[in-house]
């Protein structure tokens, strides 16, 4: 067996330019932080945001990996801007506000994680996939526990680390079984087919795929690997929660696509195997939908609510995978785009509210409709898009999810329409819990001592841009 079967040999340095740029910048920031004591720490997140936004523009393209890279870089840029507006809390938590040592790391870590995502979506074998996914995860551990003086943040970091380590173990184990059964890390359909035609090897490969998926489910927050999400989102610094909710989820779905690719290509040949895979995905999707959406209903903490909601949204994305077709890449990306924009907006607004009103409960939204009507409108659009209200991008994304299920009716791997009522209930539950924030904004009067919240210009610009994007993406496809 030649080494070309072990890992893919078709990588070129050119593909990894975005990764190299981001890693280089992250290292530069770390070195500057260590050796330039007079460095103004506030420039770090801005520099990182500008560079990653630049990378997002340069890598834009129509291929799946280009789309995922751009989205990840753009989301990282927004998270860094959020970190810039969040700086006073960062400084306060790192060294009690006395000095700014170590604050620059907070900008370098997202860049490293984003570099991991850029490499991940270009990986063609499990080794590369594992290495890049671990880059994302390791940076995320450090980020979520970054506020060392804050008990919640440390708890989030430890929880994430322990559960993440388990999932990493599962992933490695899965890769090993997969390699053992197929003799290759590349997931080449020929090797997969050869393994499946042998009864002994096929069992091993199925086990390998199941373990791989379990590892990935941890990243996307699918049941039963979802337990970390609400706790970590609640405990981690808000920009980090936003990063985990968008970029990390993006990485997970990118990896899921890569792992499932051979089965999408083989589905007409090995029907039984694919059918059991589809059934498993459908059950996971149903459980994720129910747990995420129903779990979000009683939440009072806004970050926890967004955490559960991100589990629920992952359920809607998993429904795409149930149809197991190569055409799902577009809709999955659209869903992640709509979800990413709206989630970043929600977290950004929440970060500002957290700083000025000192709370993360849903009640921080109270009376915004009267004190800050324009910002309240923009937050409304983001929550409406998450809930799937028509004329926003989120609606078309959810619609596509329903469509992909109904559209696979009559196909040989169709698992039946039983998922449909679950989706209906969950989408309706979404209206309930997302609108809870809107209730606080519009139905509650501001308290006597509430002053209008000052949204920094960067935040207002990001929110305005996001609102515009959500509406444009939600309206234009209807007109044509």
């Amino acid at each position, binding site marked *: 067996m030649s080494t070309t079967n072990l890992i893919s040999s078709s990588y070129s340095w050119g593909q990894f330019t975005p990764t190299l740029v981001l890693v280089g910048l992250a290292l530069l920031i770390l070195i500057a932080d260590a050796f330039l004591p007079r460095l103004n720490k506030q420039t770090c997140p801005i520099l990182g945001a500008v560079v990653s936004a630049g990378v997002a523009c340069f890598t834009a393209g129509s291929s799946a990996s280009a789309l995922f890279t751009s989205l990840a870089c753009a989301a990282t840029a927004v998270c860094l801007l959020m970190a810039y507006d969040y700086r006073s809390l960062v400084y306060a938590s790192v060294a009690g506000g006395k000095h700014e040592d170590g604050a620059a790391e907070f900008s370098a870590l997202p860049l490293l994680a984003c570099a991991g995502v850029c490499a991940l979506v270009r990986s063609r074998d499990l080794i590369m996939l594992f290495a890049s996914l671990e880059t994302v995860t390791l940076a995320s551990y450090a980020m979520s526990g970054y506020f060392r003086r804050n008990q919640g943040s440390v708890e989030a970091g430890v929880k994430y680390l322990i559960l993440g380590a388990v999932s990493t173990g599962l992933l490695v184990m899965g890769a090993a079984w997969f390699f053992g059964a197929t003799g290759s890390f590349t997931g080449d359909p020929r090797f997969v087919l050869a393994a499946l035609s042998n009864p002994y090897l096929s069992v091993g490969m199925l086990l390998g795929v199941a373990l791989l998926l379990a590892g990935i489910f941890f990243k996307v927050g699918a049941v039963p690997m979802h337990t970390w999400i609400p706790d970590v989102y609640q405990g981690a610094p808000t920009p980090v929660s936003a990063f985990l909710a968008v970029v990390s989820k993006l990485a997970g779905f990118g990896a899921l696509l890569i792992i499932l690719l051979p089965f999408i290509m083989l589905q007409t040949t090995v029907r039984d195997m694919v059918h059991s895979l589809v059934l498993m995905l459908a059950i996971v999707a149903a459980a994720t939908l129910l747990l995420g959406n129903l779990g979000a209903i009683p939440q009072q903490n806004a970050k926890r609510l967004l955490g559960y909601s991100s589990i629920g949204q992952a359920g809607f994305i998993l429904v795409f995978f149930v149809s197991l077709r190569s055409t799902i890449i577009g809709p999955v990306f659209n869903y992640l785009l709509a979800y990413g924009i709206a989630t970043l907006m929600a977290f950004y607004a929440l970060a500002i509210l957290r700083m000025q009103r000192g709370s993360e409960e849903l009640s921080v939204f109270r009376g915004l*409709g*009267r004190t800050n*009507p*324009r910002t309240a*409108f923009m937050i409304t659009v983001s929550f*409406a898009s998450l809930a799937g*209200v*028509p*004329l926003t991008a989120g*609606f*078309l994304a959810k*619609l596509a999810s*329903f*469509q992909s299920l*109904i*559209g696979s*009716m*009559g196909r040989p791997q169709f698992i039946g*329409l039983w998922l*449909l009522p679950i*989706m*209906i*209930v969950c*989408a*309706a539950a979404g*209206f*309930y819990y997302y*609108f809870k924030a*809107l*209730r606080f904004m*519009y*139905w509650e009067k501001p308290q006597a001592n509430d002053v209008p919240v000052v949204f920094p210009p960067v935040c207002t610009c990001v929110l305005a841009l996001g609102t515009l994007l959500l509406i444009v993406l939600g309206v234009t496809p*209807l*007109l*044509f």
Partner: protein
Amino acid sequence: MLIWLILIPVIASALIGFLHTPGRATALVSSLLTSLLGIGSIVALSLGADGECLTHIGDLPIALTLYLPLSKPMLLLTVLVTLAAVLGLKAPDAAAERSWSISTLLISAGATGAFLADNVVAFFAFHELALIPTFVMIGMYGRGERRTIAWRMTLYLGLASMVLLAGLLLLYMQMGTTRFLEMRVMAAMGRMPVSTCLTAGLLLVGFGTLVSLFPFHSWAAPAYASAPTPIAMMHAGVLKKFGLYGLILVTCIFGPSCDEFFGCWTNLLLLLLLGNVLWVGCVTIAQSRLDTMLGNSSVMHMGYIFLGIAAFVTSGATNALAYQGAGMLMLAHGLSIALLFLLSGQIERRTGTLEFCALGGLAHKQPLLGFFFGLAGLASIGLPLLANFVGEFSIFVSCFTGWEPGATSPSFCCGWLNSLAKMLGGLGPVQLTLVFALWGLVISAIYMLRAIRRIFAGAPTAVCERATLPLSFAEICSAALLSAVLLLLGIAPGILA
């Protein structure tokens, strides 16, 4: 061209919201423009104008059309009620005036889009756009238990929307096209959905809940009673017709095979609509406040329109009288209930209460108000020469169209109903339902005439003595506009065609 019917209100509400232009004045200009444009395009179409120029912008087929069944009367209803709602709008303060104007305009834009959309997705999306301001306005400015009421409505309609969305998706993915006009062509070529029963059931429950079909009606009356006047007018008058419009649209798409499409659900619909007419009718009699009475009466009258739809469906979409009757009653009910809510708002502003026990003898102080209320009340119970009568009468007659004594064997699922029907001269399900539903006329006469007597007749009570504020010019205009159209359609229903 038609796209401006949606763009004008959206632009106007953006102006009010972001540039703080005067709320009512901006809304008035916008609704006058849309009324002229809407009526103009209906007239132009009926005069044989080239419909293509109305439905296309350049090379892009915009998903709006006036060629769908009932989209013309529904457009007329929307622009008229919007104009009346804006004319009669009277908010407690400037901020409320702005938000009420914005909501009225957005509901109007959404309803127009839904009634003109020739595309499943736009059809659904525009309706949802119109629903959101309703929730927000009831939650912010509603009367009584506003939060509970608005929340219940949000949940009911949110769930209904999702059920409806699933039904519409099933429909279009099985028909292979998103456009209604193309679906009709496909259905005429014999294409039927595979899972007919599921699709029809989802559509019926989804649309039905939006129209407050019994037993999914409990959100409606409290919401209308609680909503600010213009919002109640827009929702009860215009937006609720969306579900009925959708059911008729689906029926027309399947044409002769619609009976097969709805299949088993038709009999259930007949049973449920009796719940609307009789059960909710009795609930309406028991109300002690004008606003909840009007809300319940609106739910009750939906039963008749459902009856028209059922007659239309069972005839295989050939019963033109049922179709016209349902369309006319949708228009007439929209106008009359909007007028009633408008007047109820004016009564409350003058007397400060809507409790029947506190009101009395208001006609002495407010003769004009009494006249308009009497007219609207009589219209809503179906007095001849008013538009509602034309609609109700057409529906009642249409139930017996094509029916001959003993010609058709009754087809109920249980035996004793069959024998009962045979005893009654071979009545079919639709005819039998009509026999029961006719009692609704008596019920609505009871509550409406009693309301008129309690509010306007007799010696003035203490609160009515103080109600001396005369109707303003705008208020008279707004009430007169709706009354005039009700009368016009009642005397000359033919002009609609």
